[in-house]
């Protein structure tokens, strides 16, 4: 008996997308051409940060929230500091705000390079992992590691150590490092700059699935600079709000299959945060040195193919290298490392551009300096419904391929979002059920 294609049921089930931190799985079910279910399950153990921040001193917050992520602790520290400074009615001005941008440059470089070369590139070039990729492309991997290390060096310089920096405090820094160290760091960055340029050309030469979506891009926007910690929250469809209005426009919902809350617009639409959203919404703020190369490789905005987020990461890496070189040229270690803050009750909001997209924090502080309430909305939670939506639209185009190939392409799509290091590693068990 022959079976019409439309009645064939196909299930792709990837049980373990990850290791201990950030555990996830992928489940797709299709009947014929119709996708009936897509779930990116995140079953990472619940961690309760917002709960145990209650009753802690606001001064401890940047040290605690840094621990949410080992790849982007700076993002958590910066969003926390900005929110808590607002709650106390103070603003950190020059030169400290520029040094915060320097710290953030370091985090973007280390995170972007890690994701581009170690996690995402193997998908494009058909390798099982960066280890097997390195066997054929030793030179590229070695240079990538050197560039990543230059990013680590920046975080180390101003933050005290590359993971969970200790030199960040609400109001500024504990101590400013010496000029001599700044000079050495600047030379390291200049040495690695050429590879950052090569990276853009290299990524532009990859083969990209033809997959454009009408995304709602959401990012920060600042009138004078490419965004890090300050500015308004804007979108491709015209949202333009101050950070304080974030919770009026966006919401988090809790679905059964995930311990990560799902972000969405209040009207129910999904949205995309991260490098592609930033580049699309802030292209005019990139320096000429980056724009020229974007032009050379034919990168045009708006780019609606998130597989090309790897190019956006490469552009942002060069931006971060150049920006850091500029900041270090004028570095001065003599100003006061922080501003004084007096305890007072208040509410503050902070938003900064983590490597993976906007990271929103809100705190309520009592008069004794203790936290009454905390809200933290990480980028991956905001992107998760968009990832599922992408999979729903993308899966039909790979349905006819072998199980291995179809799964690989779906994983590659998930990695477009750089969800977190453990979600992006290459080991998967796949279960496909076919019933006719």
């Amino acid at each position, binding site marked *: 008996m022959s079976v019409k294609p439309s009645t064939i049921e196909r299930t792709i089930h990837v049980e373990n997308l990850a290791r*201990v*931190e950030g555990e996830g799985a992928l489940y797709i079910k299709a009947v014929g051409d119709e996708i009936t279910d897509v779930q990116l399950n995140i079953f990472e*153990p*619940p*961690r*309760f*940060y*917002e*709960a*145990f921040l*209650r009753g*802690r*001193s606001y001064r*401890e917050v940047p*040290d*605690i929230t840094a*621990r949410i992520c*080992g790849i982007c602790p700076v993002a958590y520290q910066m969003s926390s500091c900005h929110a808590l400074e607002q709650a106390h009615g103070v603003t950190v001005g020059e030169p400290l705000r520029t040094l915060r941008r320097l710290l953030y440059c370091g985090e973007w470089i280390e995170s972007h390079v890690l994701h581009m070369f170690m996690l995402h590139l193997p998908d494009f070039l058909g390798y099982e992992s960066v280890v097997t990729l390195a066997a054929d492309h030793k030179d590229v991997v070695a240079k990538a590691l050197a560039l990543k290390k230059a990013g680590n060096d920046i975080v180390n310089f101003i933050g*005290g*150590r590359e*993971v*969970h920096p*200790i*030199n960040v*405090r609400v109001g500024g820094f*504990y*101590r400013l490092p010496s000029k001599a160290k700044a000079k050495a760091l600047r030379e390291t960055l200049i040495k690695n700059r050429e590879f950052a340029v090569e990276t853009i050309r290299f990524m532009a030469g990859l083969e990209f699935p033809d997959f454009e979506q009408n995304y709602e891009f959401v990012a920060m926007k600042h009138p004078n600079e490419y965004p890090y910690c300050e500015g308004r929250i804007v979108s491709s469809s015209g949202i333009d709000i101050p950070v304080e209005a974030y919770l009026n426009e966006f919401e*988090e*919902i*809790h*679905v*059964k299959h995930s*311990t990560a*809350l799902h972000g969405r617009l209040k009207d129910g639409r999904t949205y995309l945060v991260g490098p592609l959203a930033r580049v699309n919404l802030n292209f005019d703020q990139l320096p000429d040195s980056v724009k020229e190369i974007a032009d050379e490789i034919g990168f045009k905005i708006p780019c609606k193919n998130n597989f090309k987020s790897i190019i956006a990461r490469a552009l942002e890496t060069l931006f971060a290298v150049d920006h850091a070189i500029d900041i270090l040229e004028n570095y001065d270690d003599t100003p006061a490392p922080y501003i004084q803050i007096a305890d007072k009750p208040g509410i503050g909001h902070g938003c900064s551009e983590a490597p993976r997209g906007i990271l929103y924090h809100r705190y309520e502080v009592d008069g004794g300096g203790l936290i009454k309430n905390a809200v933290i909305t990480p980028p991956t939670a905001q992107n998760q419904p968009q990832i599922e939506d992408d999979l729903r639209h993308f899966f039909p185009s790979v349905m006819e391929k072998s199980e291995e190939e179809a799964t690989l392409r779906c994983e590659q799509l998930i990695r477009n979002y750089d969800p977190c290091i453990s979600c992006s590693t290459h080991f998967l068990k796949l279960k496909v059920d076919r019933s006719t």
Partner: protein
Amino acid sequence: MEPGPYDIGLVEGSISTPEEAERIVQVRKECRFLVTIGACATSGGIQALKNWADVEEYKRIVYASPQYIDTLDTASPVAAFVLVDFELRGCPVNKYQLVEVITALIAGRRPQIATSPVCLECKRAGNVCVMVAEGTPCLGPITHAGCGALCPTYGRGCYSCFGPSESAAAEALCAHCEKTGTSKPTIVRMLRSFNGYLEPFKQVGDKYERQAVNN
């Protein structure tokens, strides 16, 4: 998990869900040496703060549908469930110490990781003591070495990413902090951060909390 046996198993993260409590037993069986890396696996980490709280309330604070959340009431060190051959401290760990542990296990010798306090590293670095000179509370005298006395080098007190050192005199240090003006609730918070569930931090922290409540 791919079936073993493995020579060395490196475990990160605390045990905080029923599924993890089962899995760690299997991991132990498959590994000749089991090494925990980092504060979470070694002390329960920052998540262990829920051990002092009502977890049902925590679920309600963070999640709109708490009934979907499956979690143990405590976040515990791996050693609370299985035998651990070596515990590597730190949040984050010191990468050179990690290399030393692996090298030593391969060579069949004991890892050479100092168990002395941060205070000693700080003296060797030639720092001016933040506690003596500025009255800043510092956990350096009772914290396991390994960071190179990073925080005091930057002019701030140690907050014990590496947890208690061997024979840490936590009670004596806290008494000194109290005498020099640190409040009891602040002392409780100092002890209960990234390694608060390890002794003697737990015991002394609990004592100060009782005193703070009674006052």
